[in-house]
């Protein structure tokens, strides 16, 4: 298959997936040096949670977004064996969310003449970062982050909640499970 046609096909498939609400999620995680995360048992929420969401006024200080995100983090931490407590937790949980626009450039299928045609695609991408810090020292113990397309997600509350569940699940799947 012509490489340009292949690229266009891949682009079309990615776009269709994004529109269908199953946008690809890129997940990264980091564990502090010489840290055994699963040695920590209990967690609590950091006092100051930043409810700003730079890049998207719809989500900035939006309680429906933040409450669902926080609930999803609770559910997935529990499922990994970590216990919530308000009294002297082992780690504090923090999160940050932001959105930004990104541009993807692709070569279109050849036009009828010999001109090259490149097209740009602008899309919104959301980032969620979850941090665990040692409650005693304040040192970062573990960080997980995910990026995902937001096409049609924020304007539909149910889809937004499904996306949060999916993203938080993928991030915390990287957290070592406590046995």
């Amino acid at each position, binding site marked *: 298959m012509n490489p340009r046609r292949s690229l266009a096909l891949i682009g079309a498939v990615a776009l269709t997936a994004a529109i269908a609400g199953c946008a690809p999620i890129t997940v990264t995680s980091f564990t502090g040096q010489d840290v055994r995360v699963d040695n920590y048992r209990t967690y609590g929420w950091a006092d100051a949670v930043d409810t700003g969401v730079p*890049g998207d*006024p*719809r989500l*900035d*200080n*939006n*309680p*429906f*977004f933040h409450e669902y995100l926080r609930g999803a983090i609770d559910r997935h931490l529990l499922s990994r064996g970590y216990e919530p407590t308000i009294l002297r937790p082992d780690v504090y949980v923090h999160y940050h969310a932001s959105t930004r*626009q990104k*541009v993807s*450039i692709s070569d279109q299928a050849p036009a009828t003449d010999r*001109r*090259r*045609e*490149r*097209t*740009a*695609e*602008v899309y919104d991408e959301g980032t969620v970062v979850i941090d665990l810090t040692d409650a005693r020292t304040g040192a970062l113990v573990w960080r997980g982050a995910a990026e995902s397309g937001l096409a049609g997600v*924020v*304007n*539909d*509350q149910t889809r*937004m909640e499904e996306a949060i569940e999916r993203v938080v699940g993928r991030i915390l799947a990287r957290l070592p499970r406590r046995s």
Partner: protein
Amino acid sequence: MRRVHALLPAVLVGSLAAAAAGCITLIPVSSHVDRGADFTRYRTYAWGPADALPVTDPRLRDNPFFIDDLHGAIDSELQSRGLLRATSERADLLVHFHAAVNERLEVPARAERFRECAGQDCPATVTTFEAGTLVIDVLDTWSNSVVWRGWAEHRIEDMLDDPQLVGRRVRDAVHRMMERLPLAAEARSRAQAPEVTP
């Protein structure tokens, strides 16, 4: 059937012309809601204090037409849905709004690109525009929590110099946002019921 096909271009051209003239505004609106809130018990509202997200753009913040239009449109929509503005008593709901202006990227329409690229290679093009987002929050005063947030988004650079157009777009946006506010049929019927005098 043939007649319908023949009419379609005329309808399309008419719609586009009306939209271009500002008569039809296709402003995307949406909302989030507290699904557990009982909207049937809300009867009164008041304006809440500004929060951490005031009207961020000075062209809007210092524009009395915009603020007046917005206040008027929200008052009118809430009252048409059966809510009364609280005077001395504690209101059931507090309403406040924020308007933000952000620079956003977009890809020009294909026809525009085609004109620019006639006879030569066509590079990818991205341009910027100013997007305005109007957010309305409704808080339950008893639980002190937001029970509904609605928003509308629209490009603004083509209307800031035209107060009448701003007013029309604000009223349209607020109306379409408030259509999503789940005020109960009971509240609506209160608004529509004829006054009974003894």
